[in-house]
């Protein structure tokens, strides 16, 4: 779902639920979501295999201890 599609759906749903004042806040949330989705830490399934900053440290992305 693109941010535009999500925003259209969310505004429509808010209207149905009797929350017309939600439109402006949802526009703000959509801007923040666009920013998150364009961040350079995101991975894509058809791009390079993720390399975790944790490297060989224990924990997520690292080796189990």
């Amino acid at each position, binding site marked *: *779902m693109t941010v535009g599609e*999500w925003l259209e759906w*969310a505004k429509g*749903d*808010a209207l149905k*639920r009797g*929350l017309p*004042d*939600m439109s402006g*806040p*949802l526009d703000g*949330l959509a801007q*923040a*979501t666009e*920013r*998150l*989705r364009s*961040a350079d*830490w*995101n991975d894509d399934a058809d791009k390079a295999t993720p390399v975790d*900053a944790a490297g060989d440290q224990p924990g997520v992305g690292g080796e189990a201890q």
Partner: protein
Amino acid sequence: MTIADVAPRLATGEVKSEKLTEDCLSQIEALNPKLNAFITVTADAALASARKADLEIAAGRYRGPLHGIPVSLKDLVDLKGVRTSAGSRVRADHVAERDAVVTARLREAGAVFVGKTNLHEFAFGTTTEDSGFGLARNPVDATRSPGGSSGGSAIAVATGMSLGTVGTDTGGSIRIPAAACGIVGLKPEWGQISASGVVPLSRQLDHVGPLAACVTDAWLQYTAMLPPHLRTRTVPTAAPLKGLRLGVPTGYLFDRLDAEVERVVAATIEALRAAGAIVSDVVIPHANDMSAIYLHLVLGDAAEYHARTLLTRPDDYTPNVRLRLEMARYVLAEDYVRALRGKAVITDEVDRALDGIDALVLPALAIPAPPIGAATMPVKGGPEAVRALMLRCTQPFNLSGHPAISLPCGRTHEDLPIGLQLAGRKGQTEELIQAALAVEQLIERDR
């Protein structure tokens, strides 16, 4: 009056807790009708505790610097037998069955609880305007917000309604009101002080900590809130300013400041440099993304906690908080996960910024206390939303979990307080306090 000043006099019996408590209750009686700092006042229980403290001290059973000290609790923190409203009619009938962990620790230290302070409903806001128990007002200028969400706590300490107080900080809710009201606020390192028995906003971002009249008072409360094995009776001394390594995180955290905040903070940093501190610029490369990361995390977490009551009693929320909580339910899982990854990126970048640095130095609050009802404030580059401005300088350290403290560093031409923020390395809160004591001494010397 500070805890540091009065505690030795309590210990010797020169000052009585009962008298101190009566004085605080008198301040509450005189000022609360105007400022609305307290939701619940526990006068009878407080006086009984104070008399008990006086008897214990007289019998030689002095517990330490909080013994007999009147303290307030943000009404998000459980106090056995007393309502925890969270500033909301949703919890108007809730009575705590037991003390929160932090309350129990302060009780053990001998603190006297005078009441529960007002807050932005469910801690979900920065102004303390949206409270189910009425808005709170800044004691410096009652037409302005005291900041939030721990607004009532900041008012209480700034006006002597209590000598110490417990707040919570999810995006800046201890440091923002401390800066707006001209007092000290310490957000400890994440996870250091238990949030058990505290109504959550976002468990991964919530911090419990003290607001206080001075840095030493913040330390005295902070150590009492720690688990027993981490406590120390030693009060830190100021670090030498000569050679203190301070990092200035330029860019995003400095580019939307009120002109007077910018001038006063720059002058303070220059004074620190002149006193021998080694000041250098540092970079948090993804600082521009912090607001988006924070928003998705806090909304997602709040949506989970409020899901049922939004359905069953929506009209018991204040309109603005309800709207934001309803919006929270539209955050998609994939975007929440992106925000989680962003949080890890910011944590790593704050760690790197502190490499070879004793503390980061920056404003605590980008603007002075805003007028009540203001949606935007003018800053360099044009008007900006008040909420975004108020969170801008504090939320990095909620995402990263590093300890951070706000202390007053000057006033605007309208006499509104301006706060300076120091952020330190994890595991080194005592070193952060030492740096803050040094900065506090310099500011008081130059005042």
